[in-house]
Structures are given as C-alpha cells and as structure tokens.
C-alpha cells in the first residue's frame, strides 16, 4: 500500500468535521428548501418537488425584515467602529503599562453569556434602569416614551454585544503600526489630522475590514437582540427564521436562510473588493 503522507492525515479530522457538520447540513438545507407539504400529511411532513418559487415566496413574505436586518447591522457596525477605533488606538499607542489590563477588560464581557448580556442591556435601558429615569428627569425623554422595544435598543444592543469583535482586530492592526511612520509623517509636513487620514487609517485598514465583517455578519443574522430588546416593529430576518422553524415550516426556514447567506456573501465580496485589503501590507 502506498504510504499516505502525514500532512493529509493531519487534515483528515478537520475535513471529517467540516463534512459532517457543515457540508452535509448545507446540502440537507438546500434539499429541504425546495420541498412542499405532503397533501393530507401531518405538520412538518414534506416531500421534494423542486419548488424553487419557495425562495420567491419566502423573500416576498419577509423582505421587510431583510431590509431591517441589513440596515440595523450596518448602523450597529458603524456605531461599534466609531467606539472601537479610538479605544483600539488608545490601547495601542497610549495605554503604556496598562495595555494588558485594558485588553482583558475589553474581552471581559465574554465571561458572561451573550444572552445574559443582552438581558442586562434590557435592564439598563428598561423602566427600572437608571437611564430612562435620568433622561426623564433631565427632560430629554418624555414620560410616555420608552427605550426598550425600539430600533435604538436593538441597534445599540448589537453594537454593545459585538464591540469586542470590532475592537480586537482593530487593536491588532493599529498596534502593528510603527509609531516612527507617524513621526515621519509629521516630519514631512502632515499635521495630526492629515497623518491620521494618510498614514494611520490606511495602515489600520486590515483591522477595519476584519472588525466590520466580524460585527456585520453575525449582526445581520442575529435574532437575540431583536427578540429581547425589540418590539413587534423591530423584527429581523433571524426572528422570521426562528418563528417559521417553531411552526415546522422547514422549506421557508431553509430558503430564507439561503437568501440571507447569499445576500451577506454578495455584500462582503463587494466590500472586500472596495476596501482593497490587498493594497495594505
């Protein structure tokens, strides 16, 4: 018997895992997505009829949620970027000996489960939290207005939950910037703002791209934040998938999932092309 070389043997467990838990389910999902209910059958009994218009139906039924998912995810990503960039910059260049402690603090929310953090966010923004009474006593929020069950709650919840995913890649790429290139920029007649625009930002683009993807992709498919923090007017695609799944409408669930995957794939591809990470070392 010909000896199989070691690298292939080492790849085998990974391939086996991916095949079992990624390829097979995807194929199964694709297969279910074109099925139709068996006439006279029980709920959840389907047969393959290759009905591709399942996709059209699914999209038309949930296009509002699709739009909302993409917009919410985009806004949450931008908020997270706006918060994380200065944070990562400070960590990389200004934190000095506190760098490691502060990095641990950035990751600290991960010690609490995603669900619990979202519930905590609901408490903070809820009627009994300190935010709403404070804003009301300052006259910024009227007595009848609430924060939970709004788009604001859902979007800030996502920005909050995914902030570490934005901060860490940004930190990694900003930390790699040689501070002497920033000095060189100042030496070559660029003021602080121009130095940021022409040197710091382009050199941190790999982190910006990685961070925004790591935030946008899970945010677009998220349903926990909308479920816990949102109201009936804030449902996202994830909520549709969940609700269809609970009533055993598997073909609709599968086709919506595929549309979401395709949409994210297209957006990410265009984004990476535009952001052009290959220009950055």
């Amino acid at each position, binding site marked *: 018997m010909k000896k199989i070389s070691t690298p292939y043997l080492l790849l085998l467990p990974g391939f086996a895992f991916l095949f079992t838990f990624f390829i097979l389910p995807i194929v199964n999902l694709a297969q279910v997505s074109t099925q139709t209910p068996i006439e006279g059958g029980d709920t959840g009994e389907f047969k393959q009829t290759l009905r591709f218009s399942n996709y059209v139906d699914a999209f038309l039924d949930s296009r509002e949620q699709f739009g909302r998912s993409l917009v919410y995810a985009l806004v949450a990503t931008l908020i997270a970027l706006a918060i994380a960039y200065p944070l990562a910059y400070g960590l990389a260049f200004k934190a000095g000996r506190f760098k490691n402690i502060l990095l641990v603090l950035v990751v600290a929310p991960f010690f609490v489960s995603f669900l619990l953090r979202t519930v905590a966010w609901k408490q903070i923004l809820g009627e009994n939290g300190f935010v709403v009474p404070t804003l009301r006593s300052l006259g910024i929020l009227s007595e009848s207005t609430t924060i939970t069950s709004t788009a604001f709650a859902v979007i800030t919840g996502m920005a909050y939950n995914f902030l570490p995913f934005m901060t860490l890649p940004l930190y990694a790429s900003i930390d790699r910037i040689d501070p002497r290139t920033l000095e060189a920029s100042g030496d070559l*007649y660029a003021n602080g703002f121009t130095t940021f625009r022409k040197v710091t930002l382009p050199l941190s683009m790999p982190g910006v791209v990685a961070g925004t993807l790591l935030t946008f992709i899970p945010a677009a498919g998220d349903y926990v934040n909308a479920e816990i923090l949102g109201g009936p007017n804030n449902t996202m695609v994830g909520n549709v998938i969940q609700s269809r799944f609970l009533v055993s409408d598997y073909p609709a669930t599968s086709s919506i999932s595929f549309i979401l995957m395709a949409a994210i794939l297209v957006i990410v591809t265009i984004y990476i092309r535009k952001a052009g990470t290959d220009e950055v070392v």
Partner: protein
Amino acid sequence: MGESANSARGDLKLTRITKSYGDFTAVDDFSLTIPEGSFFALLGPSGCGKTTTLRMIAGLEEPTVGSIHLGSTDITTTKPYQRPINTVFQNYALFPHLTIFENIAFGLRRRGIKGVDEAVNKVLNLVELPHLAQRKPTQLSGGQQQRIALARAIVNRPALLLLDEPLGALDLKLRRQMQIELKWIQKEVGLTFVHVTHDQEEAMTMADTIAVMNEGKIEQMGSPADLYDNPETAFVANFLGQSNLIKGSLVGTDGDSLIADLFGQKISLPRNRSHAVDSSIVAGIRPEKFRISLLQTPTSGNVLSGGKIEDVSYIGVSTQYQVMMPWGQELMVFEQNDDGVAPFQIGDGVNISWEPIFTFALRGDEDVEAGTEVMPEDLDEE
C-alpha cells in the same frame, strides 16, 4: 507662524538647551551652532543625549529649558510639520502602504506642490533607484530602503537634514559605501546635514565638524583631524580611536615645547597641545605613532625605555603589540607591516619612541579609562 518658520534659513543655533525626563537629564545645558551648508556629526555613545538633541531639532521633543533658532527664527516650540527640517529616521520609517514614488512625493503633496513628478524622478535618479518607483518598501533591500528614506527627505530641500543613525542597520561593506555616497550627495545638494551616530569612523569619514557628546554635554567639537590629533579630554581620546594615556607631570619648558616627566623619563610635547591646568598631566600618544626598537638600538625623539613585549597580534596591514612598561602599564603599539617581517617576539626588551609633535597632554585629574568601556560595536541602537 507656520509660513515664516517654514521658509526660515540659516545657521542652526541651540542655546542652553536642557531636556529632562523626571529626574533624568538627557541633555544638559547644551549650546551649539551648526553653520549653514555644513556636514555636522553628533557623535557619542548610547544614552549620551544625541538622539534627544536631534529629536528636539526635528520638533519631536520640546526642550525643558532653552531655545532653538534657525537663522533668526525661533523654532523652539514650532510643530514638526511647520519646520523646514526633514529627518532620515533610524530604520527608515517608510510608509509601507505607499509606493516608493508616493513615499517620496509625500512631503511635496502635503505642502500642496503641484506636478511632483519631475522632483521625485530627479531625486530617484540622484539615489540611482529610478526603476523602483512603483515598488512597495517591503520589496526593497535594506540599502535601497535607506536611499529612499534619504530621497524622501532631500526632495523637500529642507534647510536642515537630520540623519538619525541612518546606516546602523546596514552591513559593514554597504555602510562604508553609503558613507561615501552620503558625503557626495551632501556636496551635490548643498544642504546642511546633521548626522547622529555612535560610530566614530562613520563620523570621521563624513563630517566636516564633529561634536563629541557624553552624558548630555559636548566634550569637544572640531574637525575630525583636530579631535583625533588634539583631544582635550580622556573621553575624546579614547572614544575616537584608541590612545595610550600615561600619568606624569610638567617639569619645564623649552621654547614652544613643554618638558614632562613620565615615571622618571623625560619627554617633550608641543605647548599648544597641552590642556593641563597645572603641572599634573596625562600624556597621550596614539598607538600608531609609536615606534618600537630593541634596547641597544639608538633612537631619536621621545623615548620610553625598559619595555617588554607582552603580546603580538598580526592584523594584516599592521601588527599590534602590547608592551609592558617598568611602571606596570601596558602600552599599545601599532606598527605598519611595510618591511615584510614582524621583527619582535614576546619577551623582547624594547624601547618605545615617537615624534614629540604627536604628544598631547590632558589635565592630570582626567579619568584615563573614560570612553574606553563603551566600544561602539557593542552598542545597541538607541
């Protein structure tokens, strides 16, 4: 302010500059004038304050006390981007995301200069790398990056070009070649160069004027030949090349010469090379100025007799001897290998002689070890 500082020209004048970081004084009451158009070197060991001085000139640090003038313009607190001064950074600090062309054009573009192509191409030709314009810095060798860093600075025609250990990262052979090229480029463009280095050979090869720095102060300033032939302190005598320093005392005069007693043996030295303040001196002679002869051979000039060869090292162009003197001091002697044989053996009894004019005298209280413990080769980059 920006405009007037940016167009400033003339001599650079540092007046009573002090820079402290907490308790540590990096630069201590430092004054210096660098004439326009000169190639000036700040030479000293690691931690002597030379890089701090350079950063203050560039505007990357602000002096704690004192002022910096360029011509008649006070630039002490002017921002770096408002100074007509450019720096060739240690390790170059090229922008990794820009092409070589854009790296060089960076300063021109920031000043809003239109049509940068001609200036950039001209300077690329000057450093002989026009074919690399569209590459990225990481695709270049160390020597090429060094030249691009230089091109990026000189394309701006600054009043002052600062070079911070620019050759430190290059290997020895390339370093020697770049020294000659830098010197040539400085003549070609006619800019004032201020070069910071810990490599005394580099400073001597390139600079018109060298300021030797130690512990935040200038030890001595002058032309390379001045510093080498007529050092004023033991630190300079030891840091620039090597020196034999022998304790003694002045015992008389003879016209323009002084007579000194070194452990019972009389020598003479030129009066204008004595920096002694009283009769106690340290006499200094460079190792290559010494001649060795066997005890019986007649000699002229200054003679120290009663030596014994302790060690012989054949170096190729020269042979280096360690000679033990009767008072227990080892002297270094470099003899040119121009007669085909190394005539002296370990254990030979010898006299050491030299021309009196090659003697210098330092103050008697100088620490003869100063500057010897810092061998340039051992230094890390600051």
